[in-house]
């Protein structure tokens, strides 16, 4: 009996060797699915290495817009003998293992419950190409061609992508088209096709883009008016500044003089990177740095100074698993607490947590306005999954507007003020007026320091002056709550006594899990946190549910801790739903964990409700 076709709902994984040019072929594969209008989620799973180690590329296809990662591999395309044994084990029963059969497989590689499709990739490339590098590169294109036949991918879409990729290098188009044909023809001549896992054009993505978070953050910084970028290379944030550099060299060069309307400095370390950002913003330019967890650790002292001295700063933290010698190429949401309370002394920092490339762009641009309006650092918490993988996203939005520079006094304003006080709360919102060096010859200057000064920035170690300042900063913190983005709510009115809270890249898997649970008769209300400090809406959501599942990608339930600590919630009310193996969270996992906790805690919860 022929298997029933499974349309636009499967996972394919490519097992490659890093440094062999597979990435661009794999990207083309995912982009072709996107072009057919079918929601697609590609993810790179790569080692901290440049050449020779196994690397995987996993593509989930799902026309219901379930864009999170899914467990289980339906089709494995293997061109890496090193990881082959494990790759075969990872295929779901009934799935397919596609491999280079130029050499026969040893019998320990044979599983009875999966299908094998051999393509003699080495044989074909040896016959077709004499240059070893061409053999390596075209092998990738040939397997994409073979897959196109196997899963009904439109060849014309692939061909068009090749043409776009080699615009300006037209000579390369024909050989790539030929390689696609070689793969596709081999399948057509030797196998029954298509497989039951197959694509069907849907045109669901007319208004969407396929983009990575890091580049979107970089573009947001361009639109937000950043002129100084200081950074130290660290995976997975490096591509933020790489992209900023690319965009700036295109969009930020003075047409007449050829001079740059930006400056990028690769600092000697993350401390220096943050120092430069603070120096630049103190002096009235918009500046940012991008880093990951180890860099955030190193920036702690400066972040504290900026908090106390009230200097704007923008930090894009692309989170990864800890520690410094951890798994730097795996994703996590584990810098929540170190960012929220960055530094020593009483400090709290503003966090913005985007979930998709369009929001990376929006928050990145917004962060400069917020940092200047609130006169404090703003930390954008992205993660490796969001930053370094392509995501289907709404297009980036912008309305041409003036930058909000906050309370900065001009020369004329200074002339009208009798006595200027840098830390004087004249408006009652806890935010005082800044002056930028060079504004006025005799008014408005002051000596910036962390504390030990009064409202007029005059040196004092009077404890009362210190306390007054700290209380004003607390007042400012309340003001900040009215500026930061509100959470996203997924129901008009609450339906359930159970709530689900998530943030960042847990978004799609959480909503998918919510659907599954709903189908099983468990209804949940949902909220996506987008910022810290928590706004009133966050408080309302939590207060109006009896139990809340807090979904996050770290071991210690850091967001849950932050909620408990800031909102003084009974810890029993917030239930941990965690994922911390370095892979993006899946809906199956969330659903399983929630169901399990409902079973385990059922009696206890019932007791609490009645007691």
């Amino acid at each position: 009996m022929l298997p029933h076709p499974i349309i636009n709902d499967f996972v394919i994984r490519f097992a490659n060797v890093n440094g062999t040019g597979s990435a661009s072929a794999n990207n083309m594969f995912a982009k072709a699915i996107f072009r057919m209008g079918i929601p697609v989620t590609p993810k790179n799973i790569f080692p901290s290495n440049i050449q020779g180690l196994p690397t995987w590329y996993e593509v989930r296809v799902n026309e219901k817009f379930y864009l999170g990662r899914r467990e289980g591999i339906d089709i494995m395309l293997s061109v890496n003998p090193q990881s082959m044994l494990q790759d075969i084990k990872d295929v779901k029963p009934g799935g397919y293992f596609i491999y280079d059969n130029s050499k026969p497989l040893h019998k320990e590689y044979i599983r009875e419950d999966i299908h094998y499709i051999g393509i003699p990739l080495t044989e074909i490339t040896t016959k077709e190409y004499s240059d070893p590098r061409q053999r390596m590169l075209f092998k990738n294109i040939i397997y994409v061609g073979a897959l196109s036949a196997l899963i009904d991918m439109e060849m014309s879409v692939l061909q068009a992508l090749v043409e776009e990729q080699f615009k300006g290098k037209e000579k390369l188009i024909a050989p790539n088209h030929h390689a696609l044909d070689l793969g596709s023809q081999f399948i057509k001549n030797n196998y029954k096709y298509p497989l039951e896992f197959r694509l069907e054009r849907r045109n669901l993505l007319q208004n969407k883009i396929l983009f990575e978070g890091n580049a979107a953050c970089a573009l947001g910084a361009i639109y937000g008016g950043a002129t100084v970028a200081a950074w130290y290379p660290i995976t997975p944030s490096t591509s933020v500044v790489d992209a900023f550099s690319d965009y700036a060299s295109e969009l930020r060069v003075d047409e007449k003089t050829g001079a740059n309307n930006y400056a990028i400095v690769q600092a000697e370390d993350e401390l220096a990177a943050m120092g430069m950002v603070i120096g630049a913003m103190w002096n009235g330019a918009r500046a940012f740095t991008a880093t990951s967890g180890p860099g955030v650790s190193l920036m702690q002292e400066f972040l504290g100074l900026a908090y106390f001295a009230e200097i704007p700063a923008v930090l894009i933290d692309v989170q990864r698993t800890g520690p410094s010698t951890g798994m730097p190429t795996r994703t996590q949401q584990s810098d929540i607490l170190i960012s929220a309370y960055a530094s020593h002394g009483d400090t709290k920092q503003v966090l913005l947590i985007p979930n998709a490339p369009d929001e990376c762009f929006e928050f990145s641009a917004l962060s400069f306005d917020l940092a200047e309006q609130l006169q404090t650092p703003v930390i954008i918490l992205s993660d490796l999954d969001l930053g370094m993988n392509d995501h289907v996203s709404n297009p980036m939005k912008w309305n041409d507007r003036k930058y909000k520079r906050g309370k900065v006094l001009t020369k004329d304003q200074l002339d009208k003020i009798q006595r200027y006080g840098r830390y004087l709360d004249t408006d009652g919102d806890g935010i005082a007026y800044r002056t930028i060096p060079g504004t006025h010859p005799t008014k408005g200057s002051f000596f910036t320091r962390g504390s030990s000064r009064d409202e007029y920035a005059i040196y004092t170690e009077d404890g009362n002056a210190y306390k007054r300042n700290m209380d004003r900063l607390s007042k400012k913190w309340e003001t900040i709550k009215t500026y930061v983005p509100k959470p996203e709510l997924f129901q008009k009115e609450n339906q359930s006594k159970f709530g689900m809270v998530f943030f960042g890249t847990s978004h799609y898997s959480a909503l998918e899990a919510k659907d599954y649970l709903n189908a099983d008769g468990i209804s949940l209300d949902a909220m996506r946190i987008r910022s810290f400090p928590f706004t009133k809406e966050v408080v309302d959501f939590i207060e109006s549910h009896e139990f809340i599942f807090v979904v996050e990608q770290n071991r210690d339930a850091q967001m849950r801790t932050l909620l408990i600590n800031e909102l003084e919630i009974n810890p029993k009310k917030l239930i941990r739903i965690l994922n911390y193996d370095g892979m993006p969270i899946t809906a199956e996992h969330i659903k399983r964990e929630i169901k399990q906790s409902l079973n385990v805690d059922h009696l206890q919860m019932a007791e609490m409700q009645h007691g």
Partner: protein
Amino acid sequence: MTYQRPSFRHPELPLNELGYRKKDYEGSLSTLCAGCGHDSISAALIQACFELNIEPHKLAKLSGIGCSSKTPTYFLGNSHGFNSVHGRMPSVATGANLANRDLMYLGVSGDGDTASIGMGQFVHLIRRNLNITYIVMNNGCYGLTKGQDSATADKGSKSKAGSVNPFQNIDLAGLAIELGAGFVARSFSGDKLQLIPLIKAALAHPGFAFIDVISPCVTFNNNVGSTKSYDYVRHHIDATATFDFVPLAKEITTHYSAGSTQEVKMHDGSYLKFNKLQKDWDPTKKETAVHAMHKANEAGEILTGLIYINEDSKDLHQILNTNSRPLNQLTETDLCPGIHKLEEINKSLC
């Protein structure tokens, strides 16, 4: 504070060309120990800026942490200042300078702040050739934490408590020359006549300018046996030259005996005039400068004056090819590519 600096000044004190009095370059009252070398350096800075006709708000002063780094409150009260993080002033100054290339930048640091915790940032500041005057108030000890040896304390120098420093010293001026700094000087807080023109020349230098000023700590390092005490320094100074800084288009007022002078023209048209005391030493030639320093070291002397100058180097803004308009003055019109460009970018991602 229970006391204040009297605000009264003689009404006939001279104005500089911009119409400012010296008072306009002063700061609040120093809280350092009476007799601290740092206060003399502050006074020299005030005098130099007054004489150079610097608009007070066109200079920004940045410092790290320590006694030295407190001093920016004691001079140029009409200039913005930034008391940053221990050893990290160079990065803050770099950011500030990138934001506005039109201001002058004065970095004030100490031997602990620069030669220990801040060594990394110091060397990278030189590597980038930031346009800044960087002054180390060097007393060979940690004053604020009560007198521990610093990394610039000489080997064999005796502390107040009687212990002898067993470690090699770090010579910041020698290091700066080695790293390619274009202006390297050493001076003594007690030698105002040398220090003031050095500060002026450093401020006029269009790149990284370094002055290592030996500045005795009267409280913790002014004892017999210390090589950073007033007495020791006075007795071991070996000035490279008597030296004058002649601002752009000014008459030469200092007179030197014929045949012994050397002039170095600076980019802005100012020039330096040396009355040389040493043979075989040319401040524009790195090898001879390094040689002169080594020779003085071997003789147990402290070489002071402008040791090395090279006017031909690109500063960070030139290296990065930034707009001549300061980056902090660019607006949305200059910086934001606009809606239509974004639509184009969105389209390219479909």
